[in-house]
């Protein structure tokens, strides 16, 4: 009896067909999506959007900033290796930094550097240098950072890295705590005390252009300005952020005229150090350590 030859190829086709039938409910959406995708590709704007997306992701992953992010930070590694953080400062700007009679550098910035280093478990090495050379010293990595009442400078962001601000020394309009003035507009007929010739004086003359009836009370020093406020000879005064903070017990800030945010300056390669400094500053802020340091160096209670 002659056996009918088995059509293996046909069987295979049937099998595949059956599997296809079984999978059809699942494959149909995929097929539909594929067809939709192909039809979308025929539209130019979709292609452009996709290319842009791919390009953006590529640049984000492999571009110069990304490479820098993934790159090592030799400054931070050195701090970790040596367990020493070299901080440059010009000890000529009390109460931020000054030199005692026995040659010690003290001040708010010194304590801030020590508090940050303590969080990292490393030592601080203070390096005294002229103010004009601080940025160059950071740029050349002669120091790991500079903390010296240095303001943020947007024109230097391609040369060095800045931390978040830790103090604002800009100019303010201040009034006694019991003053009825609540906004700048209330000053239209006020007696405004300023130190003659200071930046506050310049601000006062600008304000007088806006409110011509302001009466200027000129004094010879910031202490005299505050004295005028306390004695009632003036209704408001203009002082900088440091003086305002030093006398916060007696006066309150009515209006911020300018900002001068002080920051920690670091080498451009020190991206991890920058992140660590920012995180630590935030930690110190949350824990109240920054406020304690301010109280220690700026509160004039008992000093006046």
């Amino acid at each position, binding site marked *: 009896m002659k056996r009918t030859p088995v059509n293996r190829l046909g069987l295979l086709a049937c099998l595949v067909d059956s599997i296809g039938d079984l999978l059809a409910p699942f494959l149909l959406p995929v097929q539909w999506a594929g067809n939709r995708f192909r039809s979308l590709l025929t539209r130019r704007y979709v292609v452009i959007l996709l290319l842009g997306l791919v390009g953006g992701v590529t640049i984000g992953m492999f571009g110069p900033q990304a490479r820098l992010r993934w790159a090592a930070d030799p400054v931070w590694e050195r701090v970790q290796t040596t367990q020493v953080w070299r901080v440059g400062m010009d000890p000529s700007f009390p109460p931020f930094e000054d030199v005692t009679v026995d040659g010690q550098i003290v001040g708010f910035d010194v304590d801030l550097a020590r508090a940050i280093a303590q969080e990292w478990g490393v030592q601080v090495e203070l390096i005294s240098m002229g103010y004009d050379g601080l940025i160059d010293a950071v740029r050349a990595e002669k120091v790991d950072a500079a903390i010296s009442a*240095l303001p943020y400078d947007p024109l230097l962001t391609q040369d060095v890295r800045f931390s978040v601000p830790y103090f604002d020394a800009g100019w303010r309009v201040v009034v006694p705590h019991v003053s009825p003035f609540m906004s700048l507009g209330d000053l239209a007929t006020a007696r405004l005390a300023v*130190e*003659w010739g*200071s930046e506050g004086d*310049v601000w006062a003359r600008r304000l007088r252009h806006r409110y011509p009836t302001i009466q*200027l009370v000129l004094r010879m020093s*910031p202490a005299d300005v505050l004295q005028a406020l306390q004695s009632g000879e003036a209704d408001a005064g203009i002082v900088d952020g440091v003086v305002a903070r030093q006398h916060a017990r007696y006066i309150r800030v009515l209006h911020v005229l300018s900002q001068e945010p002080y920051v920690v300056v670091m080498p451009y390669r020190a991206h991890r150090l920058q992140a660590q400094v920012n995180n630590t500053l935030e930690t110190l802020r949350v824990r109240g350590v920054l406020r304690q340091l301010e109280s220690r160096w700026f509160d004039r209670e008992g000093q006046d």
Partner: protein
Amino acid sequence: MWNKPLPWSRRAKLRVIPPLFPQGDVWGSRGAFLVASLKHLLRLAVPVLVTVGVIASVAAGSTWRPLILGSPQAVKSINPKIGVHTRLTDEVEPWKILRTFEMVREMGASWVVEYFPWWYYEPTPGRYVWDHPDMVINFAAHQGLTLIARLGFVPDWARPPDTTPSYLPQERFADFARYAAAFAARYRDRVSYIIIWNEPNLSQEWGYRPVDPVAYTALLCQAYRAIKEVAPEVAVLGGALAPTLAPPGSEWGMNDLVFLEQMYQAGAGACFDILAVHAYGWTEPALAPPAPDAINFRRTELLRALMVRYGDTAKPVIITEGGWNDHPRWTKAVRPAQRVLYTLQAYDLVWREWDWALAFTPWVFRFPRAAQSYQDYFTFVTVDFTPKPIYLAVGRYARGELRPTMDDLVDIFRQSGP
């Protein structure tokens, strides 16, 4: 239909304004063709020119304005030795340069010192770019100001890699002298004073190398000879030393009195016409007596005594930098009222008593942008040209309305400001 003749009006138009490249003999005479072509081009040119003009105006931004200099001005002042150091190197907008010199003149200052960096104006060897100095020098001359040019700032092609622009190797002294001579030759009718280098007794101004009075003297002499060859009437100023009490062997600098003496010993006396002096008062009053171990304004007298000792009695002095700072917290600063008083007293001292001094030009009139540091407290006007009280007080003094005494300043306080 295609044989239908065009209406006469259309035909006429075709004859007058033909296509640019006509086919066939449809134009009549050659002259008519040229006239018609020109009209055609004109018709194209108008929209093209308007478009280009609009694009150029937008590209130039809102700062593009015709600058009107007006008629030449003259300084009015009772004290002809009042000056001020301007800082226009990075100032790009012409109206700000002009406004700076106008305000300087209105303050009563006759002298200005301005910096002309070598790197900016000779970016590649032998190729000079004079646009900016042309403008600065012309504007200053137009305001009737006497300009003193300070030269320095080494281009990258004239120094080794990884060095600062204050680093000038000895084999490149001749290149600097060539630049100084080119500058002098170009501006000899408007610039009569040139300062060679700045504060060479500080390491940072000598390329962070140990300072060297002999090498500086060699540089000064080369520049002096080069300038005199092309413009013998131009006065060369040497020195411009930073007042410092740096101890012997300091890596940061050399005492200015010691440096000047070593310059004389190296033969510098024959290589400058006027001594440039930097006279900062720091925390001391203008009239505080001089002493070798003190930095104050009258330290200038000690430098002058050194000149006399080396036989340079006839040579004058110009104070090309100096003054006081009124930063609220800097330990080298004074209070603003003190700054005003000391500055006026210094102007008066130089005018009435120092007949060997031609001018006092304190640092600095204005910065193009805020330095955001104690440097801002040296200025006379703010970045936006708001006059500081010191500017107004100097103006009053120059008009003879104010004497340099604290009593007069107190009167100003009583009048609610100057």
